[in-house]
């Protein structure tokens, strides 16, 4: 096994481990308790349309 395969192989395993482990935890309170969060309840289209109407 050459160095390229070993290095990137370990990178894949490590990254997937991080994803499957930390992906299941909630984000930090710093992330969740922001006031400027994305409002996913409003579509970007309707937001752009309402902005256009205002202008």
């Amino acid at each position, binding site marked *: 096994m*050459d160095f*390229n*395969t070993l*290095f*990137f*192989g370990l*990178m*894949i395993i*490590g*990254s*997937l481990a*991080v*994803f*499957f482990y*930390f*992906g*299941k*935890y*909630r*984000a*930090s309170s*710093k*992330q*969740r308790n*922001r006031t*400027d*969060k*994305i*409002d*996913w*309840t*409003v*579509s*970007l*289209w*309707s*937001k752009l349309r309402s902005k256009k109407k205002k202008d």
Partner: protein
Amino acid sequence: MARHRALQMFGRSGNPAFRSKAFTQRSSDFSTSEVMTLSGTVNKTGFYLLLCFMTAAWTWNQLYSGADVGIYLWGGLGGGLIAALVTIFKPTLAPYSAPIYALLEGFMIGGISAIFESMYPGIVIQAVGLTFGTLATLLMAYKTGLIKPTENFRLMLFAATGGIALLYLVNFIMMFFGSSIGFIHSNGLFGILFSLGVVAIAALNLVLDFDFIEEASEHGAPKYLEAYGAFSLLVTLIWLYLEILRLLAKLQSRN
């Protein structure tokens, strides 16, 4: 189920946006088994990645055994597009259409990867490593609050992603007339900078996916959105992988 139908999305799957009614439905509206969870989404993402890997490995082996893989490549691309459109416009079908999308995209990715590997040995494992490395790094950056997705961030990414899509579409149409936009494929400085920019935009789309998944599961969104969230992540990952593969190929072709 009627309530679920109220849920509508728009745009590219990596950037789903919800109209007010269904997203704001609380977990109390559903039984616990019907509610989206973070772990459910992560598990589904893993399952779809596995499906994608299986068909990719199959096409890869076919190509290396000398078989013609054109039908898998184009079939995977066309079928994957149809499955993606079904998932985007009918999210309630995501638990069925997303695995089909993963399987079909695997056929395409396996073929493309094998072609690149035969031209530049060792490139595929580098691209896969960098893709998952980016996924893990951005996940940590998002979870710790280092990257904060805001409305402006979403708008900027939407515009940038739309611009790239338009550019690729124009290039695709030009190919029918025996021409193309030169710098997209060039291995010169501008071509590499363009690829780097596209990789960065594809990577930042992952942050939007994380935010959508986090918010939807926190609001107790319906269970089928687990499949939709995993599908969004898969679409972005496949895009990111292909762009990284192209960037690496450009860099290696300079040697």
